[in-house]
């Protein structure tokens, strides 16, 4: 059996295209008030005075809430963890300002238009204080007391004696690589509709993890979790910035509490730059040492990222240098640069995204120095086991992925770098793609109905990647049903709690629980028939034993049972892990790109790309391919255009919209984006044989592009994005 699953179309495709899918911002409740934030225009200091008189005089404006009007955080809030709470710095609990764009007042009005007009009419004065530009701040050691981000991975790592090994290396490359801050800007901005009924709170929220919102809202008000219900059937893109719980969610619920009316808050584009996270600016110093055959003998990697003043967010870009290649001597160090900015977050693709940009570039520089093909250089240091633990990988077929990608791209017969096509100079580059697997505890219930349909229930949320579709395939396969007879009921904390939809963890986490639940249902059906579980098969809506066959409808009807249910759970100690104990799990792959560079005009264009991946079994060839294409497009944006600039004299993001922040458009993406998966089933990752897919696709792309640019025109760009100013030649 091929491990490439059926390309079943997305079950939610039609409602997403015709606009009938209801996102958080589409929800409304009778009597709701619209909330619009007034945000600080200074990056540091205190609010001196807020004059709401003019705003309150406008028609439709009901109330302007300032700091003293909001309920204080309940004592339970002190026990919450950062993360999944993004930051404990909740605005409007005092008059202190920690970054520009921080909310200082909430205007509540009968209409959105009135609330917007009211927000514009609020007059605030400030007592400014000197502010710290994080990009100019000196790198400092990570402080484990500043939030819990430092517990998510290693801030320091040492193996062997990298300094000694470096001195004896035949080839050494050393360079510094940088990438700018980037804002995710999903199509749907963050949005929440909060409504109280007595001491029970219901929120419609645009999120990537419902139970985290439930737990943190409960702690904010000192409620039992069960008193908070979070509903999020569809999320209009997240890319990580809806992964953790952000202060606007707490503030909306507080405003609703004060007003005793539902409050609807949809962040504006400007708000998306001030109230939710961003991928931080990251600078990386890498040294690679290799012996005369090109084998890596030493790697040092020092990373620093910008962060806010209250918590040390850490962008673990050192992960690749301790997990991509076999090397006996490795040192890693993570540093932070603190300043007056919104706290960053794990935006697509975290850790390996920035890390693969620097390491993938450095490996290309090493390949040039040694005089080896970059694939051969990588094969010389192929990591057969996890370089950190020494344990065998759950499964790794990266050699096969190199061969597959190389063959499909024509890597070994590629045109010489700089080959002309008109004014274009052609260049090719490749890099590794990889992302560690993360599993989160998840639960799910499967119900088999008397009409021969099935349903699965879970709080999981869909950020657009299609879990309802692939999970219907999983249930259908186990229960012998066509996927269109399996219905998803998701996105509600009244359902069995699921893990988050980030880190490409949904399929392996919730999917494993789902596999268990559907299998339990199948076994119950077999018992209803009186047939040994080991002897039955499920096919075409029937249970089959040898030559005997009975329809599901008949079995349930004769037993007088309206439905059979089964529960499944993936139980994880300490919230999350990296695969089954003893089997570190990681997805692997390689990206190959061909670019055109017109150095006279400073132009860079993508001509074609091939991605070949070792990710375990693919449940749905169509949705997986779509995710990989999306990741490559995302990576192209990172490589060629995306940047949010911190305006040094104003202490704020320069352009807080999509007009001066360039993202790829359709015309930038050639049709020749070729995706291939190695035929693989990973039995050590779980019963489904899957690892992780989507997040990895954006790794490696920027390095492959920079390597291709070097191939084309001989310019090594070490600071993203690769814009015309870095390419143009007289």
């Amino acid at each position, binding site marked *: 059996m091929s491990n490439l699953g059926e390309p079943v179309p997305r079950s939610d495709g039609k409602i997403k295209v015709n606009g009938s899918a209801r996102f958080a911002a589409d929800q409304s409740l009778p009597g709701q008030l619209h909330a619009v934030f007034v*945000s600080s*225009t200074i990056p540091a200091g205190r609010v001196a005075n807020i004059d709401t008189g003019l705003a309150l005089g406008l028609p439709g404006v009901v109330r302007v809430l300032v700091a003293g009007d909001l309920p204080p955080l309940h004592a339970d809030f002190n026990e919450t963890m950062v993360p999944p709470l993004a930051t404990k710095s909740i605005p409007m609990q005092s008059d202190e300002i920690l970054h520009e764009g921080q909310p200082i007042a909430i205007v509540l009005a009968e209409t959105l*238009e009135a609330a*917007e*007009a009211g927000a*514009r009419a609020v007059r605030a004065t400030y007592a400014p204080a000197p502010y710290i530009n994080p990009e100019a701040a000196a790198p400092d050691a990570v402080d484990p007391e500043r939030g819990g981000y430092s517990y998510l991975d290693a801030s320091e790592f040492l193996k062997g004696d990298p300094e000694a090994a470096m001195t004896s290396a035949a080839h050494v490359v050393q360079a510094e690589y940088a990438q700018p801050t980037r804002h995710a800007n999903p199509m749907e901005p963050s949005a929440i509709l909060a409504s109280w009924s007595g001491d029970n709170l219901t929120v419609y929220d645009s999120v990537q993890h419902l139970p985290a919102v439930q737990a943190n809202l409960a702690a904010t008000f000192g409620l039992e979790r069960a008193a908070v219900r979070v509903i999020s059937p569809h999320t209009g893109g997240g890319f990580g910035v809806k992964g953790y719980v952000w202060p606007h969610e707490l503030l909306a619920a507080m405003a609703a509490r004060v007003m005793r009316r539902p409050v609807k808050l949809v962040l504006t584009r*400007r708000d998306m730059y001030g109230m939710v996270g961003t991928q931080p600016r990251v600078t990386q110093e890498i040294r690679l040492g290799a012996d005369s055959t090109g084998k890596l003998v030493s790697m040092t990697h020092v990373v620093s990222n910008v962060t806010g003043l209250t918590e040390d967010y850490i962008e673990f870009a050192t992960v690749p240098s301790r997990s991509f290649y076999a090397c006996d001597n490795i040192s890693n160090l993570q540093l932070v640069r603190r300043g007056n900015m919104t706290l960053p977050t794990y935006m697509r693709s975290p850790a390996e995204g920035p890390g693969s940009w620097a390491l993938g570039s450095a490996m290309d520089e090493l390949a040039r120095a040694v005089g080896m093909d970059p694939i051969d250089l990588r094969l010389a240091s192929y990591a057969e086991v996890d370089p950190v633990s020494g344990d065998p990988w759950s499964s790794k077929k990266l050699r096969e992925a190199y061969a597959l990608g190389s063959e499909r791209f024509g890597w070994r017969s590629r045109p010489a770098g700089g080959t002309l096509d008109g*004014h274009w100079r052609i260049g090719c580059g490749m890099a590794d793609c990889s992302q560690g697997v993360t599993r989160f505890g998840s639960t799910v219930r499967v119900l088999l109905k008397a009409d021969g349909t099935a349903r699965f229930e879970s709080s999981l949320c869909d950020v657009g990647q299609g879990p309802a579709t692939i999970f219907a395939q999983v249930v259908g396969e186990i229960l012998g049903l066509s996927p269109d007879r399996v219905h998803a009921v998701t996105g509600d904390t009244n359902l069995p709690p699921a893990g988050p939809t980030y880190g490409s963890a949904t399929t392996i986490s919730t999917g494993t629980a789902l596999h268990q639940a559907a299998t339990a249902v199948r076994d119950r059906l077999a018992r209803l028939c009186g047939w040994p579980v080991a002897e039955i098969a499920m096919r075409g809506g029937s249970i089959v034993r040898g030559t005997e066959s009975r329809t599901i409808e008949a079995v349930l009807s004769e037993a007088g049972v309206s439905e059979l249910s089964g529960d499944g759970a993936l139980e994880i100690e300490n919230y999350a892990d990296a695969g089954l104990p003893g089997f570190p799990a990681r997805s692997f792959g390689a990206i190959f790109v061909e670019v055109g560079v017109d150095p*006279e*005009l*400073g*132009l*860079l*264009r993508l001509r074609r790309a091939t991605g070949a991946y070792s990710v375990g079994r693919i449940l749905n060839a169509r949705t997986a391919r779509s995710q990989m294409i999306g990741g490559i497009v995302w990576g192209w944006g990172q490589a*060629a*255009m995306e940047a949010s*600039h911190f*305006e*040094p*004299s*104003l202490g704020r993001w*320069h*352009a*807080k*919209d999509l*007009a*001066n922040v*360039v*993202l*790829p*458009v*359709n*015309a*930038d993406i050639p049709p020749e984006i070729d995706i291939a998966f190695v035929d693989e089933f990973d039995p050590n990752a779980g019963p489904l044989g899957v690892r992780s897919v989507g997040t990895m696709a954006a790794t490696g792309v920027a390095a492959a592009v920079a390597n291709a640019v070097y191939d084309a025109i001989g310019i090594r760009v070490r600071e993203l*994005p690769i*814009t*015309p*100013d870095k390419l*143009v*030649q*007289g």
Partner: protein
Amino acid sequence: MRNFSYAQATSRADAIALLQQPETMSIAGGTELLNWKRIGIVEPARVVDITGIPDMEGVEALPNGGVRIGALTKLNDVAQHALIRDAYPVFSQAILKAASAQIRNLATIGGNPLQRVRCAYFRAEEPTPCNKRVAGSGCSAVAGIHDKHAIFGWTEDCVAVHPADPPVALAALDAAYVIENAKGVRRVPVQDIHVMPSENPAWHNILGNGDLITAIEIGAAATTSAYLKIRERESFEYATVSAAVALDLDGDVIRRARIALGSVAMRPWRLNATEQQLVGQRIGSSEAVAAVDAGFVDARPLSSNAYKITIARNATLRAIELAARAA
């Protein structure tokens, strides 16, 4: 957003009368005015809808060989009109490289030059020092982030560039706006509608109360012409630099060259010195290259946009090559 009154003008005279009222702005396609109102750049008391005025839409041939384009003609309708596509490829190309298909189906050719600068300081939701936003408040960009800003004609008071593509082509074609007001009709060369910061850094254009652009007039056909737009993404983005070139060739010898650059100054920038020196030179000759270089003697970079001078110079050479190929 401040409430405003809305009136539909029924004729040019009606519109001109309505536009003479204080705090009044006209609206046609509305692709810019609504942005300004959302951001808070303008707060007019009155908006006059001019789209119902008869006889201001369409393309017609003029007796002298040129064309006249009604100011209310949609961008896409201009670009795809046979008279434009065949006789003025530089203009048709410039329009089709502007904005997106949706915006080009809504925006009018007369409203297009009235769009304001795209400088992020000017467009900030919270006003920052910007003389075009608040006269006399200073310029944040001159010492700030300005990598896409001017290389010609800027002052300490404003370093922004005018972003529109079609006027760059029109400038190379020596086109004129027909502007009407209560006193009568006047014709203004396309590049002269914009106000350089040395004249007044707070002004966007020369239009006063009651001024209405009613048409654009272009002279004789310029089939040997081309528009080159340089930008980091392929569509729906303003130019880093653009070059519009119209040539009159005798074989491969240039008899006359007209060249305008876009996104390098507060108005389309004619390369007068280059145009003069190109006369009599062969396409691709070292003399032609020297002639192009002569047009950049006056170029003056800001601290982070010197690369634009190189790109503009190379884009000019490339656009000459493209125009010659169209012959």
